[in-house]
């Protein structure tokens, strides 16, 4: 959609250009507008971290203060000549500090991450105030921060205060938003939203999620650092309060009010926050009570408007235009599966392995305390084989799969995949080697569309576990990506549903997408954990056809409870019982095997 490609950028530029002519009539003082821009820029980075990656940090003030103090120190104490360069150095310093802090804070996720960032923020505040007081001015801050000017040869523009400073801040905000939009639409941005939606699966399809989280953290710190520097320029003074917890808290609240995951939400939130503050303090003469009112407003907003103001507007827009989308989302009774689609080739390995062994597990054992889930399993799969695994409930099938894909480490035994010992490796690494599975319980990226889901999986194979060089590159320019996604869509019969959100899919479609996610990583060995679970009889028939078409030119292992389907599908079956291999053979041999019958029917114990 090239015509809309730069729409957001254009509208931002337009808005920033007309703001000085419109906002004064709405009662905005120039200084308030400038502060909104600084908070908005600070918030862009935070939104990349919170709204896009799902990491809620309460310690952003640390980087805001660091960037601001470094820039202000250079300009006031070190007689640094260029304001522009000082701001950039402050930003780089904040990013570097962000990298160090990220190494610690990102050791944990969720509420642990939030608690650690709170603590780190406080440490920065104390360090700034005491041990580094000689550098930062302690509680006095650093006064006398100069404003920038631009030499154009024939004239010099001085960005001083009020509307004269506005063009400078607006330009900084514009550059900030353009860069952020590029990041969001880059492969890295796609992976970040995958981490927000389902970190477990993002890692399982082969992305090194820790490095991507660290990237988001550093980017957010860089934005904070630049905004901090601009705060000093704006106030001609770098206040020590930049470091306090309230700064981080205000950023979080403004972003939540405006709408996280929108990039523009923080700007809107800052506008609401600062103008309400002015209004409550000045017009209503509430004095210090303004914060109480804003606190109540914030609590109500979190309770009732879950995605902030921008999110609310988007929901409203969807509500109004529901008629048009209702047509597009009409459930298709039967999405035809194109079994005839040329099967996607599994990735080619170096050397000729066609006759060899893909996977060999020896003595594989998993103990949970005293419980032996898997005991001493020997298991070999040849190239091109289509293997089935059956066994009664609790036979240890899923545990066995988890060990093969390195989700859980075995208590004993070794796993060799394509001649390489993978015992003890991580699930990400193993997926990168070409071994992955589809999950028994769907593990999808629920807030994204079908196409975006498959894109994320395909990216892991096309780009490797971690890559930063295409941070500003459009997804559309990744060679082979579109073909891979389109091909996978066809293979799992979801071409017509490509742009539907996962939450709007029928159950059977979600199951097929689950398989598609594994397929899009182009595995040379694909494990399917109960692909038919919960499907209607008709869906089962279709899915068996689908699996048959996938299996061409690929090695697969399938666990399922549906014996009839499995017997039809696979060539060779391993039966597990109580964590051990009970029998192996062709479907016909297994059907008549007395030991298997006894295991399933209970035999003498019945």
């Amino acid at each position, binding site marked *: 959609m090239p015509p809309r490609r730069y729409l957001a950028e254009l509208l931002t530029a337009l808005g920033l250009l007309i703001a000085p002519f419109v906002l004064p009539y709405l009662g905005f003082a120039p200084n308030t507008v400038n502060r909104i821009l600084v908070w908005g820029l600070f918030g862009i980075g935070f939104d990349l971290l919170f709204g896009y990656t799902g990491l809620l940090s309460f310690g952003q003030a640390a980087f805001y203060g660091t960037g601001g103090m470094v820039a202000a120190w250079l300009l006031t104490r070190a007689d640094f000549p260029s304001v522009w360069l000082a701001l950039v150095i402050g930003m780089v310093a904040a990013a570097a500090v962000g990298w160090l802090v990220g190494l610690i804070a990102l050791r944990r996720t969720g509420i642990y991450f939030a608690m650690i960032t709170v603590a780190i923020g406080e440490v920065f505040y104390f360090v700034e105030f005491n*041990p580094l007081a000689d550098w930062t001015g302690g509680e006095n801050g650093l006064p006398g921060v100069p404003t920038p000017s631009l030499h154009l040869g024939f004239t010099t523009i001085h960005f001083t205060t009020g509307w004269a400073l506005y063009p400078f801040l607006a330009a900084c905000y514009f550059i900030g938003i353009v860069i952020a939009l590029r990041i969001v639409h880059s492969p890295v941005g796609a992976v970040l939203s995958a981490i927000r939606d389902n970190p477990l699966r993002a890692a399982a399809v082969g992305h090194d999620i820790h490095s991507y989280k660290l990237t988001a953290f550093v980017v957010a710190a860089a934005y904070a650092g630049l905004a901090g520097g601009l705060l000093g320029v704006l106030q001609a003074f770098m206040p020590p309060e930049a470091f306090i917890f309230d700064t981080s808290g205000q950023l979080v*609240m403004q972003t939540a009010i405006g709408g996280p995951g929108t990039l523009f939400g923080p700007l809107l939130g800052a506008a609401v926050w600062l103008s309400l503050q002015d209004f409550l303090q000045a017009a209503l003469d509430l004095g210090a009570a303004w914060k109480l009112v804003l606190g109540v407003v914030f609590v109500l907003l979190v309770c009732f408007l879950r995605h902030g103001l921008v999110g609310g507007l988007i929901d409203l827009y969807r509500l109004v235009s529901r008629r048009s989308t209702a047509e597009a989302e009409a459930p298709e009774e039967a999405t035809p599966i194109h079994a005839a689609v040329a099967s996607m080739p599994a990735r080619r390995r170096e050397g000729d392995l066609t006759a060899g062994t893909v996977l060999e597990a020896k003595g594989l054992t998993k103990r949970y305390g005293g419980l032996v889930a898997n005991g001493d399993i020997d298991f070999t799969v040849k190239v091109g084989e289509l293997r089935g695994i059956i066994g009664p409930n609790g036979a240890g099938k899923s545990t066995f799969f988890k060990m093969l894909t390195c989700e859980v480490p075995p208590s004993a035994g070794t796993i060799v995949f394509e001649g390489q010992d993978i015992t003890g490796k991580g699930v990400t690494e193993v997926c990168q080697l070409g071994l992955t599975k589809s999950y028994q319980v769907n593990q999808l990226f629920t807030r994204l569309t079908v196409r975006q889901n498959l894109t994320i999986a395909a990216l892991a194979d096309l780009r490797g576990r971690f890559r930063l060089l295409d941070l500003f590159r459009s997804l559309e320019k990744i060679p082979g990506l579109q073909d891979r996604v389109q091909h996978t869509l066809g293979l799992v019969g979801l071409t017509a549903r490509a742009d539907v959100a996962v939450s709007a899919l029928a159950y059977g479609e979600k199951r097929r997408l689950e398989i598609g996610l594994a397929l899009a990583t182009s595995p040379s060995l694909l494990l399917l954990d109960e692909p038919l679970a919960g499907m209607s009889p008709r869906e089962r028939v279709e899915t068996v056809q689908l699996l048959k078409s996938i299996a061409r030119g690929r090695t697969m292992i399938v666990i399922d409870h549906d014996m009839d389907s499995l017997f039809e599908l696979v060539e060779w079956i391993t039966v597990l019982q109580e964590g051990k291999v009970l029998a192996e053979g062709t479907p016909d041999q297994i059907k008549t095997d007395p030991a298997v019958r006894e295991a399933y029917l209970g035999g003498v114990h019945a």
Partner: protein
Amino acid sequence: MFTWANFFSQVFNGLALGALLALISSGLTIIYGTLGVLNLAHGAMFMMGGYAGYVVFDATGSFILAVAAGALFLLVVGVLLERIVIRHFYHRPHEDQLLVTFGISIVMVEAVRLIFSSLSKNVPAPPLLSGITSLGITFYPTYRIAVVGIVAVALLVLYFVLYRTKLGMIVRAGIEDSEMVDSLGIDVHRVFMVVFGIGAMAAGFAGIVNAPIVSLTPDVGEAILVQTFVVVVIGGVGSFPGAVLGGLIAGEIISITSMIDPAYAYIMLFAAMTLVLVLRPYGLLGVRGRE
């Protein structure tokens, strides 16, 4: 100047602070463990306990009534808050829970500021416990010794409730797997309400007990909240013994570092947290996967 007397009294200071932190953190950690909600308003609850006690002390002059008021008021606040707001957030993302409790903390702090102003308030120690006591090597404020005792009793009561009563058994089971407890036919949501109330009460109790040591301001809870987080990270989320151990460690680190240079107290505390995160990411007494 290092003297043994000084060192000894700092160790005792650490013990008093540590005991308080242990109590507050226990409240935070059982709420998180059972309900899955990290209560960012916990520091504000600590602060409100102090103010509730202050009001009652101002009216009656009785310290015991003040302590009872601080605890009971927060029990009521906690139960009401759970019924009105928190329970709507059990099925929402962690981020929303953090946002709403953060918002609540601001409302609490600003409401108190509006009513009592930002000026500090004092609740004196009861006459029986004021003055100083000789500990052999040094003299030490009697009330701080008493705090260690009072908090130890409170922790023992909490321990008894958690480990020796049916409710406690349900709570501990809920920490392990609240869905399972629900399917066993126990009304988990009623338990949630009680747990949130008890957690809030622990914070409020600590708030009023702490009031004679540090004068009350609306912002007194913020610093405590940060220290509580460090305690929980060190001890392990959802672990009552972890909160007690973490509290004592944090209290001693803050006090002993303060003896050398108060400016570095937080830095040392943070260093300890980092060390724990590197060596034992799930906390000293934490359990893997409980987050």
